[in-house]
């Protein structure tokens, strides 16, 4: 028994980079869990991946202003991501385009703009290596960033839980009655989503950030019946995937980010196979 324990704990006690990777992944899991679950419930599951492309012009402009400096580039990326997300939300409310189409339009615009900016005014230095990190290379500033954002996320969700649930489940109910303004839920949620994603990109790369956000949420959706249950399952899946994925990378020499996401993916597959019979897929019940 203690041999198994040594096998599990050993790599982390021996190497600093493994500890950093673990803490970074666990912190990311905490922040990404509620965001991922609500993204899924609000039918915006593909936003994470699209956003990774949308941050390019912001990072490029940040690089042009501040050079290869992380705060400028990550900050620029965040601003770009926020702009795209907010503009998409606005456009989907005002026009007949739905959220997905609006988002697609704006992120493609952003991506193309970013490529043009970099090729005209930047040089072909690998911006991506600075903007998109790797889980094995998590340094202290990134760790602090991710942890801080995870904390802010938890606080905001804790405080606005009910309103957010209503805004996700029944926005009409929330909107009527000439009462309090309800934009704050959508806005706050969007801001937190972008923050978690950009911090995740910067600390650990796109695959990890989006993977830890959506796969546990999808797994939880299949398995849990209540919202608190979903949140718990998602968090457990994300955290366990982090640990197991890192150990797989350590013992079997696989790249770490993909190993973690694959582990979460296996959980998702398991849930898919283990929970058949959710065939009542109509949005409204039969009369």
């Amino acid at each position, binding site marked *: 028994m203690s041999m198994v324990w040594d096998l599990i704990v050993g790599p982390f006690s021996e190497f600093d980079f493994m500890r950093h990777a673990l803490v970074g992944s666990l912190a990311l899991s905490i922040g990404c869990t509620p965001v991922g679950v609500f993204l899924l419930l609000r039918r915006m599951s593909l936003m994470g991946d699209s956003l990774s492309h949308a941050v390019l012009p912001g990072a490029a402009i940040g690089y042009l202003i501040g050079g290869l400096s992380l705060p400028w580039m990550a900050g620029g990326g965040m601003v770009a991501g926020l702009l795209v997300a907010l503009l998409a939300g606005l456009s989907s409310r005002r026009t007949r385009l739905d959220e997905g189409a609006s988002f697609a339009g704006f992120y493609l615009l952003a991506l193309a703009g970013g490529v043009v900016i970099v090729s005209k005014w930047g040089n072909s230095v690998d911006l991506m290596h600075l903007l998109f990190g790797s889980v094995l290379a998590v340094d202290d500033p990134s760790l602090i960033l991710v942890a801080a954002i995870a904390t802010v996320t938890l606080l905001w969700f804790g405080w606005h839980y009910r309103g957010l649930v209503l805004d996700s489940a029944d926005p009409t109910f929330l909107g009527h009655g000439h009462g309090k303004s309800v934009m704050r839920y959508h806005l706050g949620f969007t801001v937190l989503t972008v923050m978690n994603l950009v911090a995740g990109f910067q600390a650990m790369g796109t695959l990890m950030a989006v993977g830890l956000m959506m796969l546990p949420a999808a797994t939880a959706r299949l398995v849990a019946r209540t919202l608190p249950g979903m949140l718990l399952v998602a968090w457990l899946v994300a955290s366990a995937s982090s640990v197991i994925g890192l150990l797989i990378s*350590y013992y079997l020499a696989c790249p*770490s980010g993909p190993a973690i996401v694959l582990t979460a993916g296996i959980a998702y597959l398991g849930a898919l196979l283990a929970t058949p019979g959710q065939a009542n897929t109509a949005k409204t019940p039969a009369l």
Partner: protein
Amino acid sequence: MFGLGKRGRRSSGGKSWLGAGAFAAMFALALAFAGPARAQDTRLPVGVSFSILSDIVKVVGGDRIDVTTLVGPDQDTHVYEPTPADVAKLSGTKLFFVNGLGFEGWLPRLMKSSHYAGTLVTVTKGLKPRTMVDDGKTVTDPHMFQDPERVKAMVDNIAAALSQADPAGSTYYAERAKNYQGALDDLITWANKQLAPIAPARRVVLTSHDAFGYLGQRFGIKFLAPEGVSTESEASAKDVANLIRVIRRTGIKAVFMENISNPRLVERIAKDAKVTVDGKLYSDALSQNPEATTYLQLFQHNIRAIAAAMKDNR
């Protein structure tokens, strides 16, 4: 996608036929304009793929040539993507000097879509490359220019190509080539002197990009890198752990980042192994920094830095 970490020597991504059509269109357009202007300038127009090679070609060619470079200082040739403007630049040149050995992964595509009418000169032709194991595969290491001895042979190739295109300047090129080879010889002697006090067992360096194989071969230095030549592949925890163990066990103190690569991983490894990062080595390009604006400077800087760092090796 632009620059998304693809450092493989295979061509990065497929440009659509639309892109090829754009190249051809720009080339045709450029031809139309290139003709008349060329009449005044009597210098031989040549193109060069990247900054290090460009410097060498300029030295050999001197005043008789006019050089256009595609990948400039501080830029990464591995992930470079040629633009239609590059096709236009190339269209006026008679010779195009490239490193070859897969260093310019985008070359075949560029040649095909621009229908280059001049002569493509691969400066490494006839020189024996070394192979390396990258992700379990044996691949050719393209960074031959890191070995000044081999650069001497490349200079011969360059001079020969220039003489063939401009026979009137043959003597001129031959003399300049000889001078430069002399300078390179001096450089090699100097480097050996710098490295002499360091015992062979302590000649180990950690760097993030495996670009110094030829340098290591020439001067008996072992270069370790967490990622192979292709930084496209992500490192696994096991490889990183092994590397750290090796450092701890062997006591390497010489740890470097480069001007083009992922610095964070190197820093992480250095921190874990309790070494400090000693500074920059220049691997694939000249720099706008004053310390590496020519090849000779680049080489000197690298050797100085490596020697100084290796002194602390246990």
